[in-house]
Each structure stands twice: as C-alpha cells, then as structure tokens.
C-alpha cells in the first residue's frame, strides 16, 4: 500500500502531529498545552503559506 499525499496535505499532517507533541511536552497545565499547541500549529501552517509565496515570488 502506497500513500501519495500532496505537498500541502503532508505539511498540514506534519504540523498537526508535531504541534500535539510540542504542546504536551513544552507546557505544564492543560490550558497552556492547548494554547501552545495551537500556536505551534498556526506557525507551522503560516510558515507553509509564507514559504509558498516566497517560492512563487522567486519564480516570477
């Protein structure tokens, strides 16, 4: 069985799982863990869009 994800799907899945682990391990209380996990996820996905636009600008 082979899985061929698009670049964006792979990046979002990566962001979700990494953010969950970062949230749990880098903060102590449940509230802070959720907030930090969401913060990391936003940075990951924001970074994806930013990198995408930078590559588009470089190409044009």
């Amino acid at each position, binding site marked *: 069985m*082979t899985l061929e*994800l698009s670049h964006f799907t792979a990046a979002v899945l990566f962001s979700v799982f*990494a953010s*969950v*682990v970062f949230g*749990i391990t880098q903060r102590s209380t449940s509230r802070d863990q959720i907030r930090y996990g969401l913060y990391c996820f936003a940075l990951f996905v924001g970074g994806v869009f930013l990198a995408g636009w930078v590559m588009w600008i470089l190409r044009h």
Partner: protein
Amino acid sequence: MANSSKTTPAEAPVATVPASPSMSVIAPAVAWLIPGAGHLVQKRWIRGLLIMASITIMFVLGLLMQGRVYQPNGGDILDILGFVGDVGAGGLYIVTRVQGWGHGAIAHATADYGTKFLIVAGLLNFICAADAYHIAIGKKP
C-alpha cells in the same frame, strides 16, 4: 484574619511529587520503546494516548509514503543523523527493521516527505521520553 490567608484552588501550588526513584529510569526507557507509554505508566492517560497516536500515525504515514528507513552506518553524516532520528521511534523502528518494511532508497518525489515523517517521529519521541523523565523526577506535574 482568616480570609487573608485563604487561597483559591487556582492559586494553590501545583503538586510535583516525585515518583519512586526507579520510575525515573523506567519511564524514559518505556517511553522510548513504546511512544506515549512513559506518560501512561505515570497515569497521564490523555497525554500518553495523544503522544502515542501522534507519533505512531506519523511513523506509519512515513512508511506508507515509502520513506527511507535508515540503517546503522558509519558513512555520510546525514545518513548517520537519519539513523539517529529513526531509532528514536524505539519499538516502531525495531518492528520495521525486523519485518523488512520501508525502503532503502527514495523511489519517487513525495517519498522524501515520508523520510522526514519517519525521522521527525523518532525525534519527537526523544522529546517525549525526556518529558516522561521530568514528570518522574517531579520537575513537571
């Protein structure tokens, strides 16, 4: 007088009672072998299950994307670091090697994502093992 010394539950200090000394060895070891188990043995059920699901799914996705599974090597520095990352997944990596799953070389373009998924799953598991240790010594609630 009595009201001045009263504290609300939110202000109360968080209890960080260290577990038994042996737990500081067992927890990170088990956490490395089975992702999330280091938290589960210390009764952090939700955290443990979330970690287990995240790392396991990430590792399996890496395999399904035909990512490269690194083997012990003494060659290129990136290959050595790739192996260090992969071996962080503990039992998942051992089972993968025993069963002969994964690929030695990247077969198509998106398989490179799979390689990264495998490595990062292992590296995240190292962080989780360290977190389990901090819980065991009472440094973290």
